[in-house]
């Protein structure tokens, strides 16, 4: 340090200029802190802004509701053999949600099978039929499962449609449901207590 000091004493001008440069750098720092902060952290690895989760939350809820309806209600004895079929009309994303998350879990002793339905004539007699159709499309579906032990679940109807057992709808910022108890009874489906108790009356 001493030898450097001695050397620098012979170069005071140089030392002075270096220090001014240093001072200037700090002076710039005060003025440019917002920019500096952004730049410093922009290159910071691994820590980023949160990304909006664009998962369809209505789909998650519908999938969970259908699974709960399958688990929580009781079907006639004649429907308790073979796979437990949940048919979804015109909603491939919901089929995928159900198949991915729930299809590995049996309903009672029945393996859960999730199927897509496009043509009402090919609906068969699923345990649960879900559709967001309205008008003539819905009417055709309802006609196809008329009198079958099928829990028919619609979505977003103004009121329960004749022939539909459950209607899911948005209310008070949540997805809720109403039940047509008479339709369930006609189809021989016993609505579970918990499901019945959380149903909304409109």
């Amino acid at each position, binding site marked *: 340090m001493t030898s450097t000091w001695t050397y620098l004493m012979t170069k005071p001008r140089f030392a002075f200029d270096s220090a001014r440069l240093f001072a200037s750098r*700090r002076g710039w720092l005060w003025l440019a802190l917002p920019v500096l902060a952004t730049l410093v952290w922009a290159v910071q690895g691994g820590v980023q*802004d949160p990304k*909006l989760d664009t*998962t369809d939350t209505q789909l998650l809820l519908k999938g969970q509701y259908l699974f*709960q309806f399958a688990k929580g209600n009781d079907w006639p004895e004649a429907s308790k053999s073979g796979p437990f079929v949940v048919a979804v009309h015109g909603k491939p994303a919901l089929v995928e949600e159900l198949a991915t*998350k729930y299809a590995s879990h049996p309903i009672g002793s029945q393996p859960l099978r999730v199927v897509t339905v496009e043509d009402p004539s090919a609906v068969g007699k699923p345990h649960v039929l879900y559709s967001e159709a309205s008008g003539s499309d819905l009417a055709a579906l309802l006609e196809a499962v008329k009198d079958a032990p099928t829990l028919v679940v619609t979505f977003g109807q103004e009121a329960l449609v004749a022939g539909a057992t459950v209607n899911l709808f*948005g209310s008070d910022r949540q997805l809720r449901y109403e039940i047509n108890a008479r339709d369930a009874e006609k189809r021989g489906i016993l609505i579970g207590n918990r499901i019945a108790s959380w149903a909304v009356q409109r």
Partner: protein
Amino acid sequence: MVLTWVLAFGMEAKGQGAAGTGDVQVAVERAIALGKSGQFSEGLALLAPYLSAPTPATAKACYVAGFLHKERFKQNAANADRTEAVSWLGTSLELDDRGGGRAPWGESARQAMSYLGGTYFDDAVLAVRAFEPGDETGILELFDAHVAVARRLNPGLDASTERTEFHKNIARAYHHWYSTTGEEAHFEGVVTHYERAVALSPQDITATYNLAVSIYNRGVALLKSFGVETSFGEMIAMQEKSAAFFEQALPWFEHANELQPKRPETLRGLMIVHHSLQDNAASEAFRVQLENALKP
């Protein structure tokens, strides 16, 4: 490091900017000489008798003490030395101000202060980069120390933008932790620091939007946790809880939209949050706005 030392004292070694008279001046000159040879502690010991009751006559002694502490801090990175350095340099400048602010070492003292303030800032940034939950108090203390020094040099300084950036980056760090741990406390850290950023800078769209997204995502995460083991009662409770997060997020999305209308990210957020709140009509309205905003 040596350059700074040389500059600070080299041209004053023959008595420019006299520290006073008699013993004080001798002590100061000897302390400078000791400092030049790296004997900072010895220099400080020499000055100690003159620092107990600083007066304008001992201003230079305070300055030299601050400088010696600063040099020792550079050598050993001891925070106590940095604190002492800032304190004595500040005192020296205050005393000099009382005397008219004409000391030839004044600029050097301000440069030393500026350097020390910069180290507080740098340390705060490094602490954010190596963040662990609970570090925020220490980080903000470093930032406050940085601001205190900056304000000594520039009393009119408004540090709210910088503080906002710190809160945003602490929030980001908490988000990083929360993504890994899923712990509620880490989520609270995200929200708390984005809220503080928005409180400091209400026009900051990044903080506003990120706050909205963080809260919204928390609600989505609840619904994503649905599974075969979820009971009916749990499902109902989780839906209510998630809806509460969506409702909490909505005003922040709306505020972000007020700050910067037609911003696609915000319009997408509004479309999605309304969808999650089962308001499909409002969601559709924002979908149309988003489509228009994305048109070339």
